[in-house]
């Protein structure tokens, strides 16, 4: 079935360390979106990737979409305490009009 797996489930890092979360789908995605959800908050859109092999950067955040459009990653350089939250990927499959969220990676940054 259509399922998006995300690892790791949890990540604790020291402030200033890097962080990466990975999303994987067993079948090709049409596009993938990334969201951040702070504790007690709602998901907030970060980026969308559409093209095979696409790489996008937002300040300390780097997003990649795999060549086969089955996997994606989010890398944060030099984490800050403001990066705390759960990061979700959400993929859409061709011919559908719904987004399947990954299981999320909860990031904790230790000052």
């Amino acid at each position, binding site marked *: 079935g259509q399922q998006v797996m995300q690892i790791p489930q949890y990540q604790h890092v020291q402030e200033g360390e890097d962080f990466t979360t990975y999303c994987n789908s067993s079948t090709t995605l049409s596009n993938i979106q990334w969201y951040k959800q702070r504790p007690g908050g709602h998901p907030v*859109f970060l980026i969308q990737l559409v093209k095979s092999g696409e790489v996008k950067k937002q300040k300390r955040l780097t997003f990649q979409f795999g060549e086969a459009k089955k996997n994606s990653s989010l890398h944060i350089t030099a984490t800050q305490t403001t990066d705390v939250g759960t990061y979700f990927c959400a993929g859409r499959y061709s011919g559908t009009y719904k987004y399947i969220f990954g299981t999320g990676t909860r990031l904790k940054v230790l000052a």
Partner: protein
Amino acid sequence: AAGVIQSPRHLIKEKRETATLKCYPIPRHDTVYWYQQGPGQDPQFLISFYEKMQSDKGSIPDRFSAQQFSDYHSELNMSSLELGDSALYFCASSLGLAGEDYEQYFGPGTRLTVT
């Protein structure tokens, strides 16, 4: 800037009761998505609408129904509530159908507690 509005923000119901959740999308947004998020879980897609027509359906129980009205607001109707329906319900809106790849703007959510 205007955001997605959801009401009520909190709702407490008893088992077998009915609940109606409302969502008011960002002005000019014509697509609405409903998600259910349990504690520590990822948002689970329930149903979506584009231009007042259902565009896709996910793991939505038959006890639930939803629609999008002429002013683009949407309502999620939940009947015969069960304890397992307790969750945070998010509505998200976007501009255009998902196939056109627009970002989703999430509302603050409605926390439903079934006792």
